[in-house]
């Protein structure tokens, strides 16, 4: 009975998981990253008992293997699944990566948002904090109100109620500052499980009950009965993963309830008279106002947190410099978001790694992430475009090409070239293709390392792929005159396509 439930849990046959498995098989690192960010269990198995890690190592995709291990895939060589990955590895270098992986040390942060949160506590000085716990001897633990409120129902109650005006809380004498600090680290998703000392467990348990961390309580209970170090490590790993998933949910809820719901909307010129100061004392206890104007002309503003927004390099530079924004207490920044949903996607990503980007706004997200210098979100948006079935019902392929060039996304360049190649009869007459080729040719001057037109090269490459041909085989087939064979091989159709392309190029005036 119990085994069945466990198995059903592990047998994670939802669509995202299967997509992840596919990405692992073809070696699409970026898509795999996006899918993992949606919270899929990286240690699950498909109907054939294959884990994503096994698939990636079997198919020889080193980068995917590294990504999976970073994101919490377990490779314990003392267990069947781990050993299978190691024996199945396609190359020695993958095998070495897997062998080097040591589960007892694999307690580092799995998700980018979690690693950002822990870096807030771990990197020494806590920036932009708005609350402090003060212990004996004036030992202070600075925190962010919104973080505590998001993670713990207890703190949420306190901050919404009696502590709303407070800047600090003096802790009762004899409080265990060290254990409390571990608890705060736990809230910020620092992996602290291996740091817990036996004598602190009781206090931590009490705190967990009070603050409402049921998972932590469960872990403390279970770990009591486990002595085998490897099993312990694996348990820790499981739970750290659970904590992250759970915290993600909490952050998501908090962002929805407190940032998106408390959105301010106003008409032109109104904002300048608003007094932002009071915002610090009510949820979401923000220290920054992010405003934007939709394409329909509506003005909105979100109250956000510097400590989270600095995940974007744009904000990081802004606040670590000595410009005006860094010195003003509650800066008001405009976000070049033309839709409410775009702004929401950006914030969800920054707060809790949400990479679920609706295809309709993928281009907008891509552009804004280019502006914000958040490369990962940019990649995610690009992946969304290439993965979406419906995208081209609304957008032209040349829109994709346009954004690919202006934001330098190679993935989209290839996607567009492939798409054009697959439907060359249609596009060959489209003046926009001529335009695009012209544009691509102009880029040569600045690139200089190649003297061909990249777009045309890419299209040629994908034409070959379209008919499943290879460049060296072409030479051989040139001498072949068996018509039936040529038809079957697709060479004739390929030649037709190439001819069309060459004709177009000649018309434009390029010497092929």
């Amino acid at each position: 009975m119990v085994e069945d439930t466990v198995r059903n849990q592990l047998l994670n046959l939802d669509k995202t998981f299967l997509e992840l498995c596919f990405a692992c098989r073809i070696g699409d690192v970026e898509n795999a990253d996006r899918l993992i960010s949606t919270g899929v269990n990286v240690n699950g198995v498909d109907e054939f008992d294959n884990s994503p890690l096994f698939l990636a190592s079997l198919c020889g995709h080193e980068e995917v293997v590294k990504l999976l291990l970073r994101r919490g895939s377990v490779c314990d060589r003392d267990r069947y699944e781990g050993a299978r990955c190691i024996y199945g590895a396609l190359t020695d270098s993958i095998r070495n990566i897997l062998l080097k992986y040591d589960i007892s040390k694999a307690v580092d942060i799995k998700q980018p948002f979690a690693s950002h949160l822990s870096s807030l506590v771990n990197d020494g000085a806590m920036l932009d904090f708005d609350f402090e716990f003060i212990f004996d001897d004036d030992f202070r633990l600075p925190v962010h109100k919104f973080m505590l409120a998001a993670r713990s129902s207890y703190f949420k109650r306190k901050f919404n109620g009696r502590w709303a005006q407070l800047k600090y809380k003096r802790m009762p004498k004899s409080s265990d500052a060290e254990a409390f600090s571990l608890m705060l680290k736990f809230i910020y998703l620092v992996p602290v499980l291996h740091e817990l000392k036996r004598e602190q467990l009781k206090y931590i348990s009490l705190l967990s009950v009070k603050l409402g961390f049921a998972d932590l309580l469960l872990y403390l209970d279970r770990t009591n009965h486990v002595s085998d170090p490897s099993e312990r490590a694996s348990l820790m790993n499981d739970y750290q993963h659970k904590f992250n998933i759970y915290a993600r949910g909490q952050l998501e809820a908090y962002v929805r309830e407190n940032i998106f719901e408390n959105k301010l909307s106003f008409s032109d010129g109104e904002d300048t008279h608003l007094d932002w100061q009071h915002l610090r004392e009510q949820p979401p206890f923000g220290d920054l106002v992010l405003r934007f104007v939709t394409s329909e002309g509506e003005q909105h503003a979100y109250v956000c947190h510097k400590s989270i927004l600095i995940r974007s390099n744009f904000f990081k530079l802004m606040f670590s410099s000595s410009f005006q924004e860094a010195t003003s207490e509650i800066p008001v920044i405009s976000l070049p978001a033309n839709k409410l949903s775009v702004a929401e996607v950006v914030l969800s990503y920054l707060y809790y790694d949400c990479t679920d980007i609706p295809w309709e706004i993928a281009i907008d997200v891509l552009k804004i992430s280019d502006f914000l210098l958040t490369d990962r979100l940019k990649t995610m948006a690009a992946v969304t475009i290439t993965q979406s079935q419906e995208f081209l019902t609304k957008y032209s392929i040349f829109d994709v090409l346009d954004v690919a060039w202006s934001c330098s996304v190679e993935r989209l360049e290839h996607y567009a070239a492939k798409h054009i190649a697959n439907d060359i009869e249609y596009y060959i007459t489209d003046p926009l293709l001529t335009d695009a080729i012209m544009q691509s040719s102009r880029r040569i001057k600045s690139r200089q390392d190649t003297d061909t037109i990249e777009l045309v090269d890419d299209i040629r490459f994908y034409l070959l792929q379209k008919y499943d041909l290879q460049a060296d085989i072409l030479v051989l087939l040139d001498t072949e005159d068996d018509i039936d064979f040529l038809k079957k091989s697709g060479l004739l159709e390929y030649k037709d396509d190439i001819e069309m392309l060459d004709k177009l190029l000649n018309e434009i005036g390029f010497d092929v």
Partner: protein
Amino acid sequence: MPSVKPIVSTRRFTRKTESLDDYWSVLQNGIDKIFDDRVAELSFEKLYTTVYGLVLSKNGPQLHDRLTEQLSTHFIEVRKSFDGITGADGLQHLNVVWKKQKIYLSQISDVFVYMDSVYSKRENKPDVVSLGSRLFLKEVVGHVSDMLKSTLVNEINEARKRGGEYAESGVIKDAISVLNTLELKDGMSSVFIMEFEPFLLESTEKYYKDLHSQLTQGDGTSHWKDFDTLLKLLKAEDLTCNNIFDDLDTISKFHNIAEKALVTDNIQEIARYNVAKIVNDDQKDVFSKLLAISSSQRDKNVIFNQLSQFIVKEVLSIEIDASAKKKSVAAVAWIQELIALRDKYYELGSNLSSEQAAGFKCINEAFGKASNQIKVFPEFLSLYFDNFLKFAPKEINSNARKCVHFFKLFKDKDAFEVIYRQQLSRRLLQQKSNVVREQELIFLLQEDVGTSYTSKLRGMLRDFHLSTNFMQKSGKTLCQTRDVSVNVLTHMFWPLQDSQMNKDVVIPDSFGEIKTGFENLYAKTHSGRLLDWNYHLSTVEIAYQFRHSYHELSMPMFSGVIFLLFKNHQSLTFDEIVQLTNLPSQEVRKNMITMSVAPKTRILQKDPPGKSISNSDSFSINHDFTAPQRKVKVLMVVLNNKPSAANDSTRSAVEKKLLNSRLAVINAAVTRIMKRDRKLYHSELQEKVIQSIPLFEMNSNLFKMSLEYLLDNEYLQRDFDNTTIYHYLP
């Protein structure tokens, strides 16, 4: 066909170009404010968005160009602030200015981050910070570099003069680290490495050359070659550099320049002067300091070489005491002085720290070289051992061990072996030494040269040992009335000279019985061996009651044979004795002098008395003989007529023998090598032969003799075309 029908784009690829000038003026204003330290008035957002917009609208190149222009103008302005500033202030000013510009550049870079990460990266253009530092280099440093260079040279020289402790060191260091961060192009070394360092190195060389000539021409003292002075100067240079440079590479470059000008260029003179000084002043512990003046191995080798020459000179100047009565006395004295010398240099060697191994190697080689130049060395060494062993020491003492070490160092080991063997045989047969010590010593000797070298020596000891055992076991049965001890010596091992008189001599019957008795006894246990009796090496002990006292006379065999003649004869003339014994008259004369002339052992009476012996003299037992001890040792008198000639003849005989054996070794080596290589050049062959013979130093004369012999006997053949090539004839 794609499942999705492509739709027509609603967008065009042409984008309206924003007015560059409008946007640029925003940025220009921003940059000006940054330079004006009014950054807090600026909105990052506004500037960033402007840059973003310009780059996105493909205005990247213009933006980059305008920024370049703006920065250049700014730096030209900055340059003016250097006017009129010289000396250390100039360096200080550079540091302050650059520190400020760095902050400005980083702020501008923050604003232009989108241009850097999108446009500059794609187009391989420098990012804002490197662009700024290059322009700073070009517009500011480039124009004041002469001032900076001369200031640096002056200041560094000033620091040197103060032994490295200089108040401005910090400023110099900062200025150099500024220069070290500036580079002209990506991937190029910094301007300091490219331009300033070579200049400074050149000036350093000049500085030290000047210093050197100042010292040499100065007061005529030898100050400039004294290693203490040099060390101080080099140390000051290191301290100066350490206070100024961070890069260890640079520091070592400056050190090397100084070292070359001061030390390496004059190393011969310095080595000669200091080695002599150290050795003469007996300052054994400072030698490592002398070595520390140079980091180059070549210089150290020169110093070691000098030391080696010094040692050889000292060894060769040890005087041989020609006035000593006995050769062994001279030898022992000489060797003892050598040991003292060795101790002295070893103490010097053991005071070296890191170069200890090299030092000992040099010292050992020097001693080896010196001892090879001393002809009597093998003989002296052997004599020293002989003398040492005769005193029946309880153990091999340190001096003897040191001598073993000398043995290892010198080359002509075969000559030593010949002499040593003779002395060993004498010691063993006359039972003058402890066999255990002999064995120990031989064991020590063979450590270096291998067991084949000492096989004969060990064979001698074994013979001696076996004989002693044999006599102990079965000697009792040989003769009840007399003590008999026979040593069976293997002919190969012992330096025996066949002598006709051993076969001719008529021995008394009592001896004859024992002889045949022993031969029978020996044949029982060792069949098929031919025994030759070496009477001239034997001794007899005869007990005789003289008129006044009873004595046990121990004498050489032939003396015993002669003495026993008087058992049956009252008196005999010289000729009669020769007849009766069938010994050569020379031998009889020697024995007669021993017994009738030597004052302490005059057991026979000569008539007429006198010092010389003529054929007609008659002899009888001297019944009046008496001596303080019961045991009397009758020692063979060495005939003194033409003693040196005799000595020389034996020595030349030894040498001749040595020569022959060496020749044989060389012949064998040549044949062996040629058999393997078939065809070799003369010099190649010589090289290989030298390598294959460890026991002596082959000179080319010997080699030529060997080749002549081998060519004559058609082992080898000269090449018809090239006479320096030899072929092996199978």
